[in-house]
């Protein structure tokens, strides 16, 4: 079943606006959009609280990247952080 045109447009807009987590600076907040990772890694991130459209805050940049999701601090290796796509605060999910 195809998505309605408005949803398609929103999806495209989000795809265009999504940036790698590593492009954000320390202290910035963003919305988790997608992780281009292996299934197990996606599941683990999800179980740790990085769920669809959750809010996250960048606590430390560099290797490791440290992000805070709700009250969980998660350390991410650079290679992993690069493949996490987020929506910057200016973009509505």
């Amino acid at each position, binding site marked *: 079943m195809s998505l309605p045109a408005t949803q398609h447009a929103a999806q495209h807009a989000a795809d265009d606006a999504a940036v790698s987590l590593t492009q954000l600076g320390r202290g910035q907040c963003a919305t988790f959009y997608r992780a281009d990772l292996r299934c197990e890694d996606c*599941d683990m991130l999800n*179980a740790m609280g990085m769920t669809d459209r959750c809010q996250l*805050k960048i*606590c430390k940049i*560099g290797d490791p990247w*440290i992000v805070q999701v709700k009250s*969980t601090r998660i350390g991410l*290796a650079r290679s*992993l952080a690069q493949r996490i796509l987020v929506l910057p605060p200016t973009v509505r999910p």
Partner: protein
Amino acid sequence: MTRVIPDSATQVRNVAAERRAPRGEPRSLRVALFGNPNTGKTTLFNRLCGLRAKTANFPGITAEARVGHCPADRRLPVALEIIDLPGVYRLTLEVPESRVCRDIMQGSALYQRPDAVLIVVDATNLPRNLLLVGELLPHGLPTVIALNMTDIAQRRGLTIDAQELSRQIGCPVVPTVARKGTGAAEIREQLVRTADDFAAVREAHGDHASVESLRAIASDPALLESWADRAVARSVGGAEAVGAAGDTFTERLDKAFTHPVLGLMIFAAVMAALFIVIFQMATPLMDFIETAFGALGEWISAALPPGAINDLLAEGVIGGVGATVVFLPQICLLFFLISLLEDTGYLARAAFVMDRIMCRFGLPGQAFVPLLSSHACALPGIMSAKLIPDRHDRLATILVAPFMSCSARVPVYVLLTTLLFRDRPWLAGLAFFGCYALGAVAGLVSAFLARRTILRGRSRPMVLELPSYKMPALRTAVWTTIDRGVVFLKNAGTIILAISVVLWWLSAYPQVETPAQAVEMRQQAREMMPHDPDGATALVTEARRLEASHATRESYAGRLGRLAQPVFAPVGYDWQLTVGVLTSFAAREVFVATMSILLTGDDEAAAEDAGFIDRIRNARRDDGSPVFTAATSASLLVFFVLAMQCLPTLVVTRRETGSWKWAGLQLVYMSIVAWVAAFLTYQGLTLMGVA
């Protein structure tokens, strides 16, 4: 993805009440303890069970659980059997730990279904912790929630209404501070009350959701998340504080501990301090154990009439077990200090620092501590590989850990480097360092190869929850230490004991007649005694050397050495060196004693003894050529750096991997690598004319 298939609630209702205890014995409840990692689950378990716990391995995987007993007393006449399951974020994850938890809840395979469930949740991180609760509740088992770390939550400005939370999720919630023991007694009472009549307890806590509707919620991640969020929103005050895990103190420490340069320096300092403490504190304890076992062996030897039983007990059992138990102080200290470090929250940060280096070889950052520990002894190193969450990463670490030069190799290194560079101490020192470097390089290269062949895959990019910094719990560290020590002693008292006895028998039997020359010497000594006691004593010593050398040569181990000598001929060893190498498969340090007996007949010499070194250097083969040439010594040195000559290590590898397959692979692979490297060394040096 596998989904849990819960039983009907009615089937499990009042299970505990139905479980009748034999007349005169208190009723018992089997409780499964669940929780996310870093929620204080094990601390609460220790509070409830104390030392009445044992570690059990799950069949086929390296995950462990501790089973503890909380005895009945006058206040609560129901005994609890509590299973401390591995920490899991979600039941549905495809990791061994989650699989075990699912199997336990379903009572499938070898697992018995529990009567009740205790879930430890972190009060400072409720939204995520409740997701696991939401997955467990649909199983319909009597469930109690331990709302742990309420003191930290309070300090962060969170106010949690436990009664309201209880109403929202439909089961009793008991606030606890496991580190202080607060709430432990209430947990016991609540578990019994809930197991007795879960239906009534659910009713009393205002739950209206049926098991079926909970099941529907658990099967949809979005519904489950909103269920958890709703429960939190209605029972937790200080909403802004819910996300306040980060503070300036944590931020600063994280920045320093994970910094590429500063973090590495801090880690090096912490590890150096750790190992200095271990070596400093363990040495007197190890000496004490060695002396105690020596005295015990002598006492048994004197108390029993001479013969096979006497030799078996004094040399085989006491000698063999003593040689392994002597490492107990190192193992206990290592686990005590690692437990303290882990509890502070530092190790999770340190893992990231090392990950940058280790990942090039297919190993995760967490592998560094086990590999560094293996320089003291491979046994605690392999046992501490439990810190590594991924199974392939863990197996790769266990497989290469014995390449690290352990303290048992030191006497062999001392002997061989001294033989090689007697009057050039700086070269001897360089060779000594080279041994350590060669072991480390061989380990890393082997890990690299393993991750491209049998354990295919790169080390997974690290993703770790960074727990809050806190003061370590001394009690938990002590219990962990005792637990690991008991596991080690059980190994020493069972498999290692059996192996020691077999190896002792091979080197002590068959008992042969005393050589005629030795008999003659003793006769001469008796005649000399009245007028030349010193000369007589020297003769007796010489006779004893001759007897020991003859006995070893004619023993089964000696015969095996002669039989196996063709295998070692290309690496330059005669039958005497072959016996030395073969007997070292029990433990490497045995090599010095074997060489001493075979080549000099002195079973009490030390590698540092100058006279002993001279006797070894002058020892001859059957054809009159020297036993130790430069090429042979170098070849032996390389062989000892790389060979898997430690049966206790194989036993521990089997235990930690759950299979003899990995232990066998370790033995075969390391032996082949050692032989090939020794061959290249010997043949290369011989070709260059060094021999």
